[in-house]
């Protein structure tokens, strides 16, 4: 069986900026794959291309055998995604957000209700299911987004910094559930994170990307051996340097930030 995600010489240019500059890698079915890199390295741009939200400038992509630019719906029916930025409807309740998702992915009513209850209990929002999302705190919204991404049991689950802003308890809880799904249903997990111990703990393999190129790829052990470091965080810094990165904020991101600040 071939890999479930295949990327060959993938590129994305925004004007003269090469956000992704010819990367190649593949992910096996059932693998937990961490995609690491400093801010602005090209992680989110890569995820956007993998999930049909952006068209690649050049290169080849296969998601469960489907080419996202030729057969986007074929690719879409095989993955789920938890976005880095909020993507819930604030004017709907937690339950309505999940029901909406269930309808988009055509999950049968009975199954949908069963999974909804289980997931809302995992993220500890079952008691709040009928509350409007706009009344939720940042952490609660994050938990609801994760529950929603897990609702349709996709073949591949993309998680773009899923646990950002969550406390250790919740992180632990959610990862347990994700790894359980990975084992019981063979769901492939592709995630990005800035928590190195998280990647070290859960990932089968790790890729490090910087300036739009993949620097290294392998198991955590291999990476530690190559860099002669004791933990992934030191290895990561050894690979990508100590300089702090500027992430160019788009207007939309600034808007969200401003809105979040205004809510407080």
């Amino acid at each position: 069986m071939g890999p479930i995600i295949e990327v060959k010489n993938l590129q994305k240019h925004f004007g003269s900026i090469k956000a992704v500059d010819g990367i190649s890698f593949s992910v096996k079915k059932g693998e937990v794959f961490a995609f690491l890199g400093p801010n602005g390295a090209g992680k989110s741009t890569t995820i956007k291309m993998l999930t049909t939200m952006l068209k690649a400038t050049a290169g080849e992509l296969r998601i469960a055998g489907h080419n996202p630019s030729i057969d986007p719906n074929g690719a879409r029916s095989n993955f789920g995604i938890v976005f880095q930025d909020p993507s819930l409807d604030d004017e709907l309740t937690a339950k309505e957000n999940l029901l909406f998702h269930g309808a988009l992915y055509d999950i049968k009513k009975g199954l949908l209700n069963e999974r909804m209850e289980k997931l809302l209990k995992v993220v500890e929002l079952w008691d709040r299911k009928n509350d409007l999302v706009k009344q939720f705190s940042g952490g609660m919204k994050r938990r609801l987004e994760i529950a929603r991404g897990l609702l349709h049991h996709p073949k591949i689950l993309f998680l773009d910094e899923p646990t950002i802003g969550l406390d250790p308890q919740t992180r632990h809880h959610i990862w347990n559930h994700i790894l359980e799904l990975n084992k019981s249903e063979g769901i492939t997990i592709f995630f990005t994170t800035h928590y190195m111990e998280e990647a070290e703990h859960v990932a089968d393999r790790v890729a490090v990307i910087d300036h739009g190129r993949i620097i290294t790829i392998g198991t955590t052990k291999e990476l530690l051996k190559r860099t002669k470091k004791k933990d992934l965080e030191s290895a990561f810094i050894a690979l990508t340097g100590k300089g702090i990165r500027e992430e160019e904020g788009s207007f939309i991101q600034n808007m969200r930030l401003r809105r979040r600040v205004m809510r407080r």
Partner: protein
Amino acid sequence: MSFIRVVYVLWLRQLKRYFRSKPRMIGSLGQPLLFLLALGFGFGPIFQKAGGGDYLQFLTPGIISMGILFTSTFTGIEVIWDKQFGFLKETLVAPVSRFAIMFGRTLGGATIAMAQGGIILLLSMIFGFRPMSILMMLPAILVMGLVAIIFTALGTAMASRMEDMHGFQLIVNFLIMPIFFMSGALFPLEGLPSAVITITKLNPLAYGVDALRFFLIGTSHFGILLDLSVLMILSFVFMALGSYLFSKMEA
């Protein structure tokens, strides 16, 4: 099956959002009512003296069209909010046709605008508007639906090409307002300079206003057959345009 389910949830979402936002409901009813009362009673005597008959009768179909125009265009433009606040991504990565998403949204927006037109009609009856027949109010509601579809789709089409809400005032001042004022909603088209008539003939809303007058007070400038043909053709054209531009959107 899944197509219908997707269209239905998107339709339902628009309705829920609308009915949960009380200020928006009141605001979108308040403006047309203000126009109806201020203009209706203000210009009534002059209109009567000039031999135009009862101005409130003449004006009401125009004000109903106005309410629908504003509400439907705005619900269409709401796509921009979904884009800014991230929800659009949720729909764009789903394995459903872009047309189903656009169609559900448009039907939802159009339903709201149509219901609003119906409410304005009922309220205007409190202030003295008398439709020529109760039965003819049914086709009038259908006309409202067509007008609503045209402008919701137009709003969606415009929003698909916009990056943020900065262009919004521009659209209101240079598109929505001219469409409203040049539609014959406020004044009769008979005897106007030919340049004005030509502009009106190019205005989709003019045919909506005219068709509503036909069904509500029994007068028509263009003729009801032309009105209905134009409205139906334009609903298809704008839906097609809206879905095309919407499908090109990147989150």
